[in-house]
């Protein structure tokens, strides 16, 4: 082979530098009507390099057994299987032997040709080149001279096969890349050659620091690709772990953009909270907040009006920080709701025995938290580690067990609601704004569960009504039908809850069965309001001509029948002294119960979704006529 200092070699190095420059820099400026111009030029150069390398080989009298890298023939696309890591470390040429280096250099050119073809949408040809690279590497043992290429080529093959939806094949390549990296780091660990080093003159070789950086980045990509592969295979837990590692590596190696990283970490927290892993969720969120702070202050409105870049930056920072705030809201909300689920008895009240028991178990949990924290994969660099930890301390990650603990989490959540709403205002961000309102309402709802004072509990529900009612009535149904339906249902239920609370309160204060007229009026108002919103929900299901749907869509089947059932119930609960009014209300009630029964009779598929309600409605349909008749009879008797 030509000596490294020869002119011929220098020419090869120059060509390589050119090819790299064309691929990475020039290609960005290619015209739209010739988008691959520079890449095609780079391809030609790479081909020339390949030929030169081969001719050196021939000139040096080496044995020739290369499979041609140039054939354009379509090979059958059978998913290849990657070799074992074990073999790669124990067999073949030494990486630094002349034969090993030659193989690596040829392999690198094949690799670049492969990437070039894939980039220019010639997948099959690209695959062939990459597989040629694999074949060349098969003859070598893993060492610092070639390990980078071992990883890169597998990354590329992984991408290629994933793009073809052959996920398992992709998985094979990427997992081998992962284990080669791990084994290399364990057994050697010295900063490995970068592929560009093969074609650099002595004076242009990369520094050890740069080599390490590039190598680590390649491995970060393997992790990132594996995360996607696992996700596509439905292995969400593994996918999450790889996402987490990718984020952690980005931070550790200082290869990230703060806002993007922060948003990813915040989003990952959402995976953890839905799995009940609040400690990890809190860690991701705290890191997200701290890292997003690294992106700097939001430019003032005045500054934004001065310059377009500042305006863009202002928009970006405000939006992304508001998004992170929304992830925090969900953290608080889920924590409250999960705890509520555990603490409530069969009628949705606080179960004090259970509460005591959980408090006793708490100490154990706290110890466990400490242990888990130590073993967890933590985010942070030297200068961010402490800020992340101190943010974590501001909110608990254990399920709240009493009002005070719940209130602490509620307040954190409410604070983030305010932050999020600052950006996501009603005017411009209707859907987002309402989602935040709904979360705020749910925060109140969860907190109310822990509140023992019924008067105050009722006030919390009143707050929910106050924030939702005006918005619900302002929205245009044509564009916001689904949101309005959700809000109607929630309003109906909230009024219902308030009504129940008022009744319990009145009964508690006064032992006598009769209610005073003021309470009755309040009760009836709440009762009517609840019925009104259920009815509004039902009306929203009607056709544009106002006709009731004969067939309820699957998505609204249960809500619609439940709404009917509850309207029925509400009518029968209205307090009315005049028998005629009573009869009227009971008639309405009966009508709605009948609807539920008749609908289920004609649509047997609905039965399973409303079993309990149906059973009860049937009984009521049997009973109510008797009661109505009795009332009527009484009226005639009294007349």
């Amino acid at each position: 082979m030509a000596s490294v200092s020869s002119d011929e070699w220098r020419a090869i190095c120059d060509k390589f530098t050119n090819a790299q420059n064309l691929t990475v820099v020039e290609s960005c400026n290619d015209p739209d009507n010739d988008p691959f111009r520079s890449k095609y030029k780079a391809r030609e150069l790479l081909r020339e390099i390949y030929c030169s390398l081969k001719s050196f080989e021939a000139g040096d009298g080496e044995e020739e057994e290369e499979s041609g890298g140039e054939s354009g023939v379509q090979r059958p696309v059978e998913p290849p299987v990657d070799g074992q890591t074990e073999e790669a470390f124990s067999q073949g040429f030494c990486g630094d032997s002349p034969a090993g280096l030659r193989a690596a250099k040829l392999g690198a050119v094949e690799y670049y040709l492969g990437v070039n073809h894939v980039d220019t949408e010639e997948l099959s040809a690209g695959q062939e080149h990459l597989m040629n690279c694999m074949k060349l590497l098969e003859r070598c043992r893993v060492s610092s001279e070639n390990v980078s290429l071992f990883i890169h080529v597998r990354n590329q093959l992984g991408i290629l096969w994933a793009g073809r939806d052959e996920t398992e094949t992709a998985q094979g390549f990427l997992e081998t890349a992962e284990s080669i990296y791990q084994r290399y780091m364990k057994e050697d660990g010295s900063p490995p050659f970068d592929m560009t080093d093969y074609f650099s003159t002595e004076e242009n070789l990369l520094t050890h620091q740069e080599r390490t950086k590039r190598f680590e980045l390649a491995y970060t990509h393997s992790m990132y690709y594996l995360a996607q592969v696992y996700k596509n295979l439905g292995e969400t837990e593994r996918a999450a772990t790889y996402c987490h590692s990718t984020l952690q590596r980005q931070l550790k190696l200082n290869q990230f953009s703060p806002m993007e990283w922060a948003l990813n970490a915040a989003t990952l927290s959402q995976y953890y909270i839905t799995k009940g892993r609040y400690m990890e969720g809190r860690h991701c969120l705290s890191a997200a907040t701290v890292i997003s702070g690294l992106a700097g202050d939001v430019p003032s409105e005045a500054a934004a009006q001065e310059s377009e870049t500042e305006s863009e930056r202002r928009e970006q920072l405000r939006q992304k920080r508001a998004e992170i705030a929304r992830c925090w809201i969900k953290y608080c909300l889920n924590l409250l709701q999960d705890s509520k689920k555990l603490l409530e008895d069969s009628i949705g009240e606080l179960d004090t025995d259970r509460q005591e028991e959980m408090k006793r178990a708490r100490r154990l949990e706290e110890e466990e938290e400490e242990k888990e924290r130590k073993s967890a994969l933590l985010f942070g660099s030297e200068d961010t580690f402490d800020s992340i930890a101190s943010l974590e301390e501001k909110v608990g990650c254990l399920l709240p067990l009493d009002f005070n603990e719940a209130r602490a989490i509620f307040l954190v959540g409410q604070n983030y609601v305010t932050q999020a709403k600052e950006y996501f205002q009603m005017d411009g961000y209707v859907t987002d704004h309402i989602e935040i309102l709904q979360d705020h309402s749910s925060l109140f709802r969860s907190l109310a569960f822990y509140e023992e004072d019924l008067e105050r509990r009722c006030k919390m529900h009143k707050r929910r009504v106050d924030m939702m009612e005006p918005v619900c009535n302002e929205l245009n149904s044509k564009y916001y039908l689904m949101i309005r339906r959700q809000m109607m249902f929630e309003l109906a239920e909230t009024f219902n809850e308030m009504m129940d609370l008022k009744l319990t309160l009145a009964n508690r204060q006064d032992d006598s069965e009769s209610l005073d007229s003021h309470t009755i009026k309040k009760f009836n108002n709440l009762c009517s309001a609840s019925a009104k919103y259920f009815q509004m929900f039902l009306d929203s299901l009607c056709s544009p001509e106002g006709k009731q749907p004969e067939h309820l869509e699957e998505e609204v089947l249960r809500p619609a029948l439940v709404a009917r059932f509850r309207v029925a119930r509400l009518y029968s609960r209205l307090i009315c002294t005049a028998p005629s009014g009573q009869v009227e209300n009971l008639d309405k009630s009966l009508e709605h119960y009948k609807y539920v029964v008749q609908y289920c009779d004609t649509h047997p598929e609905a039965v399973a979704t409303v079993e309990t309600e149906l059973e009860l409605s049937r009984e009521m349909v049997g009973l109510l006529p008797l009661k109505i008749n009795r009332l009527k009879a009484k009226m005639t008797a009294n007349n």
Partner: protein
Amino acid sequence: MSKNKSSESVKVVVRCRPLNRKEESIGPAGCIVQMDIRLGQVILRNPRSTASEPQKTFTFDAVYDANSKQRDLYDESVRPLIDSVLAGFNGTIFAYGQTGTGKTYTMQGAWMDPEKRGVIPNAFDHIFTHISRSQSDRQYLVRASYLEIYLEEVRDLLDPNHGNARALELRENPDSGVYVRDLTSCVCKSIKEIEEVMNVGNQARAVGATDMNEHSSRSHALFMITVECSQPGPDGRKHIRVGRLNLVDLAGSERQAKTGVQGERLKEAAKINLSLSALGNVISALADGRSSHVPYRDSKLTRLLQDSLGGNAKTIMVATLGPSPQHYDETLTTLRYANRAKNIQNQPRVNEDPKDALLREFQMEIARLRAQLHHRKWRSKQKKEQVDGEDWEGDGDEETDGEEKAVEEYVKLEEQRLEREKQDIREDQFMLAEEKHRLLGEKRG
């Protein structure tokens, strides 16, 4: 069966173009795509596989083979959708397919030749013919906008300054839904005018020629037609009905951003395909759930069409295929994508929250009601046994006391039963906790 399960309002039709001149040498036997029009099936053969490998079969709402006429596709698949737009609903037509598969021919075709006119000119004709034949008391206003989404940036194709203009932003208004801020909207009074608007936009569109097909492009394009109809109602007042037609030209599936950044390509590819596969970002997909918030990485296209993909809106997806063996991979991708599109949920999620909470809330009520029913039933049964024909007059107030007592007792029984259930649940939970400890122990050991 799966065909019936997909929503009525999303239809997927697939069309395969004939062999072109360059491909004629392959002959019909060399085609990789076969169609069964009656069953709506596409059968795909892998040209590189052995004879024993089973062919892949996909079923759609309709399939159109190389001999299909432009008019047939329009009349059978598109016409009902345009009718519904004229009736005041939203409708969306997606066109999807690898470059060079006849997507442009299917959607646009040859405008001047009635035989070869594609979906778009036919739709224009349909709309304006309908308007010209409508009753004189109806007044119509047709407006058109044209935008493209390139790398998640929205650009106005009707803005003369298109190339240099800033990307437009999506906003929402409580009264009018999602809109593109500052988007040009042109009033069109005739087919000619609307065609002109489309031509202007087409010229402005970032057209990137590749070695495969110079007319192909890398961006999504959205042509929006709003049809407003005002008509005096029975109450004498004017009633306005607004329907919207979205014509969406989806970027080719095989298109990738031209990017020199290595290793970022998987992400980039995902980005340009965001609207197509809705795969989005891996993490977002993992975190997706009812109780979580996934920061908005939702594609602009999906957001823009959000009110067009629900309620009474109709959606058609037209996917085009090439029959030549060299396009096997891309054809398979297209078919798989189209197949997924069949399952698009056209109805956004409706609050299902009440399910558990409601049942719990009602448990006591149910108990009380049952008690009353129970008592009454028992009593009426007794009564029947006593004397048949005794009238309700005898059912006096004095009995209420007894009834109340029975109710109370029943409620008490129910409460005890609930208490027992509670106990069971508690024990169950205890067992779960125990189990957890055991597992944790094992993990550490």
